[in-house]
C-alpha cells in the first residue's frame, strides 16, 4: 500500500511542455528521500487542462500542481510528500481559496464537467491492464458475453439513445442492428481514430489515457453483430496513442480478453491497428474502409452502406473512439442511467476540445444541453485580455461559426445543425474581435481544397472556385455580385458532392456569410477589414497629435514609406507602405493605428 499517489500527466500536451524531464526528476528525488515504498508515481493520460502543463496531481488530497518545472520537483518532494505541506506557489491558482487549498474537482473547470468517456483519463496508468481492470474494466464485456444475447446488447445501446460522437450523430444502436441483420461468413468492427478535424483531440486523449476501453467496446460490438475481427484506423501523427494501443492489444491478448474463447465462451475476437497516412477525407466512413483495404482513400457511393457491404465487401460497423468509450459504462449501468443525462434528442455527454482565444484550453466533457456561454465563460474561463467573444467555431472544416447572438444555445446535434454549424467531432475554437470571419472562411476552404480527394467534380473544382472568390474578397477586389455567387456555388456543392467532405465544405462560408454579412460587405464595399487581419485592406496611419517625432518608425521602415522631421509629426506614404507592421511594433507612443 502506498500512502500517496503522484499522477503525472503524460498526454501529448503535457509531454510537449516537458513531462519527461519532470518525471525523471520526480523519480530521482523520491529515491533520494527514500520514499519509493510509500509514494507511487504514475504516468497517466490527459487531465484536460493542457494550457497548464506539465500537470501533477497528488492524491489523496487531489492537490493540483500546474506548470511544474524539473527544478520545482525537489520542493514538491521535500515539502509535500515528506512533510505534508502543500507548496502553495505551485498549485493551480483556482484551487487556492480562503479556506485553504481545495481539491481540483472544486474548480470551475472541473465542477461542471461530467466525465464518462474521459472517466479514466488522468486517473489510471494507461499502460497497465490491471489498473483498467481495477476500475471495472472488461466487466462489461464479461457481462455482455455471459448474461446477454447479442440482441439484448443491441437493445441496451438502442435504448440508451447513444448517437455517434464523430460527426453525423447517427444512432449507434441502429447501426449495430443493421449490421447484425446482414448475414455473412465474415463481418468487421472498425474504429475511426483518424481524428482529422483541426482543433479536436479528444479521441487522441482517450487512446492515450484509456486505450483498453476502446478494445473492450469493440469486442462488445463484435459480439453484438457477429464479427470476429476488428481494425483500428489511427493517425500516424499520434505516436504516443499508437504505442499505448499496441501495448494494450498485447496485454489483452495475454489475458485472454482478445483471441479465442473469450471469458470461456465460444466468442472469438481480435484487433489489428492500421495507421493512417495523413488524408482528412479518410475520416469519411467509406474512404476510411477503402484506405484500410490498401487503396487511395477515396469515398464510395452509398448505398450499399457499410452495414451491408463495407470492409472487403463484408458487413461492417464503424464507430468513432469517443462513441466506443461510452459503450462499457452503458452496458454496466444500464440504458436508463445514460438516457437520464442530456437533452431530449441527445443523450449523455460530449467531449469538447476548447481552443483558440480562451483561457483554459483543453478537454472538457459536459452533459449535452450545456450552453455555449457556460462552456466558454465558466468552464473555459473566458477570453484572455478582456477581449470580446465574437464567435465559436464547431465542427471543423465541415462546421460553422456560432455568433454571440446564439451564445445561450444549449449544445446538442440538432440545435447546432439548425444554426448552420454541426457538432462534428467536438473541436470548439473560440474567436475574439481580432479574428476576421472572411479570413476564417478562407482558411477552412484552403483546407478543403487541399484535402478534397478529387474523385467528384463539385467538390474538386467547386471548393477551388469558392476559395478563389474568398481570396479575391480578402485582397480587396471583391464585388457584391461575388457574395451572391458564393451563395449559389455553396448550394450547388452541397447538393452534388459525393461524400460528407464535399457536402459540408460550404458550411464555413455559408455560416459566416449568414451571421457576419456586414463583415463581408465591409471588405467588398468599404474595402476595409474590421478585424484588421486582411493585409491588403489595411492602412497604417500615424496620429499626428500622438506622434513625438522620434523618427524611430521612419528609421525602421523597410520600404522608406515614412517621412517627417525630428520632433514633428510623421506621415506614412500609403503607396509605398507594404503593411509589414514594423512601425506599429516599434512606436513607443502608440501613435500608429490600423484603419
Amino acid at each position, binding site marked *: 500500500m502506498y500512502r500517496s499517489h503522484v499522477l503525472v500527466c503524460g498526454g501529448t500536451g503535457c*509531454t*510537449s511542455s516537458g513531462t519527461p524531464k519532470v518525471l525523471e526528476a520526480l523519480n530521482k528525488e523520491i529515491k533520494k528521500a527514500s520514499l519509493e515504498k510509500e509514494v507511487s508515481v504514475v504516468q497517466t493520460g490527459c487531465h484536460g*487542462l*493542457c494550457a497548464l502543463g506539465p500537470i501533477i496531481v497528488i492524491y489523496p488530497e487531489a492537490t493540483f500542481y500546474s506548470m511544474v518545472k524539473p527544478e520545482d520537483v525537489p520542493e514538491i518532494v521535500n515539502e509535500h510528500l515528506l512533510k505534508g505541506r502543500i507548496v502553495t506557489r505551485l498549485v493551480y491558482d483556482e484551487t487556492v481559496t480562503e479556506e485553504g487549498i481545495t481539491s481540483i474537482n472544486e474548480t470551475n473547470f472541473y465542477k461542471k464537467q461530467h466525465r464518462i468517456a474521459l472517466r479514466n483519463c488522468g486517473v489510471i496508468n494507461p499502460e497497465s491492464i490491471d489498473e483498467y481492470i481495477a476500475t471495472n474494466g472488461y466487466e462489461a464485456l464479461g457481462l455482455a458475453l455471459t448474461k446477454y444475447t447479442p440482441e439484448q446488447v443491441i437493445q441496451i445501446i438502442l435504448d440508451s439513445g447513444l448517437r455517434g460522437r464523430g460527426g453525423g450523430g447517427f444512432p449507434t444502436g441502429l447501426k449495430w442492428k443493421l449490421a447484425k441483420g446482414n448475414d455473412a461468413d465474415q463481418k468487421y468492427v472498425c474504429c475511426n481514430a483518424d481524428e482529422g478535424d483541426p*482543433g479536436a483531440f479528444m479521441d487522441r486523449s482517450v487512446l492515450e489515457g484509456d486505450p483498453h476501453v476502446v478494445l473492450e467496446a469493440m469486442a462488445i460490438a463484435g459480439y453484438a453483430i457477429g464479427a470476429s475481427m476488428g481494425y483500428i484506423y489511427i493517425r500516424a501523427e499520434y505516436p504516443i496513442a499508437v504505442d499505448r494501443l499496441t501495448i494494450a492489444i498485447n496485454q489483452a491478448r495475454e489475458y485472454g480478453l482478445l483471441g479465442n474463447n473469450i471469458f470461456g465462451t465460444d466468442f472469438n475476437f481480435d484487433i489489428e491497428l492500421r495507421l493512417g497516412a495523413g488524408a482528412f477525407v479518410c475520416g469519411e466512413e467509406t474512404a476510411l474502409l477503402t484506405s484500410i483495404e490498401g487503396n487511395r482513400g477515396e469515398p464510395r457511393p452509398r448505398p450499399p452502406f457499410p452495414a451491408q457491404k463495407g470492409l472487403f465487401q463484408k458487413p461492417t460497423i464503424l464507430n468513432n473512439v469517443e462513441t466506443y468509450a461510452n459503450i462499457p459504462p452503458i452496458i454496466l449501468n444500464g440504458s436508463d442511467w445514460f438516457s437520464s443525462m442530456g437533452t431530449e434528442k441527445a443523450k449523455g455527454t460530449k467531449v469538447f476540445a476548447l481552443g*483558440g482565444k480562451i483561457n483554459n*484550453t483543453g478537454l472538457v466533457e459536459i452533459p449535452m444541453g450545456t450552453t455555449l456561454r457556460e462552456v466558454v465563460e465558466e468552464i473555459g474561463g473566458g477570453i484572455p485580455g478582456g477581449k470580446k467573444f465574437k464567435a465559436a467555431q464547431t465542427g471543423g472544416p465541415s462546421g460553422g461559426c456560432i455568433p454571440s447572438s446564439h451564445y445561450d444555445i444549449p449544445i446538442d446535434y440538432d440545435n447546432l445543425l439548425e444554426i448552420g454549424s454541426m457538432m462534428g467531432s467536438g473541436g470548439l475554437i473560440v474567436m475574439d474581435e481580432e479574428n476576421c470571419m472572411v479570413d476564417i472562411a478562407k482558411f477552412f476552404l484552403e483546407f478543403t481544397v487541399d484535402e478534397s480527394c478529387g474523385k467528384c467534380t463539385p467538390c474538386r473544382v467547386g471548393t477551388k472556385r469558392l476559395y478563389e472568390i474568398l481570396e479575391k474578397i480578402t485582397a480587396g477586389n471583391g464585388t457584391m455580385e461575388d457574395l451572391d455567387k458564393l451563395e449559389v456555388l455553396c448550394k450547388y456543392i452541397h447538393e452534388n458532392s459525393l461524400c460528407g467532405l464535399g457536402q459540408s465544405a460550404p458550411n464555413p462560408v455559408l455560416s459566416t456569410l449568414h451571421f457576419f454579412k456586414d463583415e463581408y460587405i465591409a471588405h467588398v464595399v468599404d474595402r476595409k477589414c474590421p478585424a484588421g487581419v486582411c493585409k491588403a485592406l489595411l492602412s497604417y496611419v500615424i496620429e499626428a497629435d500622438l506622434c513625438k517625432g522620434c523618427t524611430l518608425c521612419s528609421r525602421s521602415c523597410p520600404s522608406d514609406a515614412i517621412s517627417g522631421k525630428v520632433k514633428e509629426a510623421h506621415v506614412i506614404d500609403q503607396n509605398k507602405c507594404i503593411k509589414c507592421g514594423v512601425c506599429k511594433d516599434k512606436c513607443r507612443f502608440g501613435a500608429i493605428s490600423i484603419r
Partner: protein
Amino acid sequence: MGVKQSTVPFAGTNEQYSKLLKVIEDHKNEKGALMPIMQKAQEIYGYLPIEVQSIISNEMDIPLEKIYGIATFYSQFSLSPKGKYVVSICLGTACYVKGAGDILIKLKELLNISDGECTPDGKFSLDSCRCIGACGLAPVMMINDDVYGKITADDVEGILAKYK
C-alpha cells in the same frame, strides 16, 4: 500538400534493400498490406522515391501506377528526401487563430525555401502540417521530435539557431 518528384539521385544501400524485402515477405499475405508496407519502406529509406516504389511493385506484383497513386494521395508519403531537421508548423485552426500563419511566413523567409521543400545543404526541410493535437500550446512548431509551443514569429530565429 503538393508532392514533387525528387531531383536528388537515389542512393539506397543493399542493407536497406534486404530490410525492405523482409518487410514485404512478412506482410505479403495479409489483407490490405500495401499501405503498411509502404509506411515501413518510408521508415527504412526516409522517403519513397520511384525506385523504392518499383521494388514494392515487382515484389508484390502490383502495378506501379497503383503504388504511385497511393504515394501521391497521402500527405505522409514523401517522394523527395527530407532535411536532417524537419521543421513542421501546425496549421490547425487553434494554431491558425493564434498566428501560426505569420510563423510560417517567417520560417519561409529565414530558411529561404517554400512549404514542402528542403534547403540545398539538406539541413532543413519545411512542412506546414495538420493539427497535431497540442492545441493547448498553440501555436505549435516541431523540429524533428522537439515541440515548441506558444511561440511568436520573433522566437523563430532563436529556435532555428539551436540546430545550425
